[in-house]
């Protein structure tokens, strides 16, 4: 089906969302999942696909998990507290 979404398409959309929110809002996996289902539609994008997309983002090192009172997904960056 030409219309079928791939894991990479969802991962790219998630990455763009994380990039544009960087410095303003930390996003949790659930925020990404809800946004993707809304963006692509529930008939094309489901929880399983989102889970795979997050896995792909993390395993490829494009994103990392962070912790600030809860777990978030962010683009890798140098922490202020980690001295050079």
């Amino acid at each position, binding site marked *: 089906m030409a219309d079928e979404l791939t894991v990479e398409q969802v991962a790219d959309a998630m990455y763009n969302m994380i990039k544009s929110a960087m410095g303003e809002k930390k996003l949790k996996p659930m925020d990404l999942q809800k946004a993707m289902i809304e963006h692509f539609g529930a008939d094309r994008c489901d929880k399983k696909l989102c889970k795979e997309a997050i896995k792909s983002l993390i395993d490829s090192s494009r994103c990392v998990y962070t912790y600030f009172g809860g777990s978030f997904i962010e683009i890798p960056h140098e922490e202020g507290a980690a*001295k050079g």
Partner: protein
Amino acid sequence: MANGQTPKLDKLDKGPWPSFVREIKRAAEKSPMSKDLLGLLELSYTEKIGHWKHGGIVGVLGYGGGVIGRYTDVPDKFPNVEHFHTMRINMPTGWFYTSKALRTICDIWEKHGSGLTNMHGSTGDIVLLGTRTEELEPIFSELTKEGFDLGGSGSDVRTPSACVGPARCEWACYDTLALCYDLTMTYQDELHRPAFPYKFKFKCAGCPNDCVASVARADMSIIGTWRDDIQVDQSAVKEYSDKGLNIQKDVCGNCPAKCMDWDGQKLDIDNRSCTRCMHCINAMPKALRPGKDRGACIMLGSKAPIVEGAQLSSVLIPFMKMEPPYQELKDLCEKIWDLWCEEGKSRERVGEFIKRVGMGNFLEAIDIEPSPYQVAYPRDNPYIFYEEYFEEGDDEEEAGEE
């Protein structure tokens, strides 16, 4: 302090009991990290403020849990604890080790970290205290080579833990070790890739004595119980009495359900009123045993007082058979997670979520039949107001029929 003197900590080292200060001092003899840790702690005691920053981006590739970032805000004074990350290691189920396994962990940690450990943290994991960011991947690689994996941290399933269960305890009503191992293996993704509003803890207790305190410390407490009658050996009860146990006062009198009576010859138990508290069984272990139809009570919602106050778990399923592949339990977990992930607020534990939406609404949403056992406290009113379950117009129909 930076000059190596620790007068305040030394006071903690003077009592007769083992002190963490003594252990850090021993480690400091060969670890500069531990030496600086003492200095930093002395500084905190002097200034009455903490010098640690918690959290951040540290971790190993692919995992969102298992490493807890720590940096100090005074790296110039104590450069060896500039990074002092903690690693949580998934403990063997029931905390059974060989001495070789313990030596392996300690060797890895002395090579790459401070050498300080905490056996075990409140979730039950092996906690390794203090290492640098660049050491995390080498440690992970060496640990996995030896068959160890990281545990949970952050907003994920925390390392499931269990009491020693049938391995050493005659009261275990199900195989806690097997269930704990199964849950750990089934929920690898949920353990290592945080996707929940906040943490979620499983604890498996084999009987209502609840040696792992699951009712107070786990989001999902799986506590062994039975649904038939307590097994009684009347001659053994008599023997306890003959040897001086005041059965009426010390056993019947302390029964919270007041469901038993002793006439000097025979112990009568009204099993329908029994709350399975185990008091009588603990008092007369040779005479009483749990029933033969065994399983577990599934409870939900306890937590320590971090965001809101402390909560104890509430009964969700009064009795569930606990046999592999535990499909009924897993289906229940997934229903709970689906709802909590969808509707829960950030940093809201599942117990707080239930409190916010109401137990009745929660049960309806996860498709569980309300039961009179789902009470806040024993012998209290049920959560469920059954009149809510009347369909609209029921009253009118009934009135019309009159």
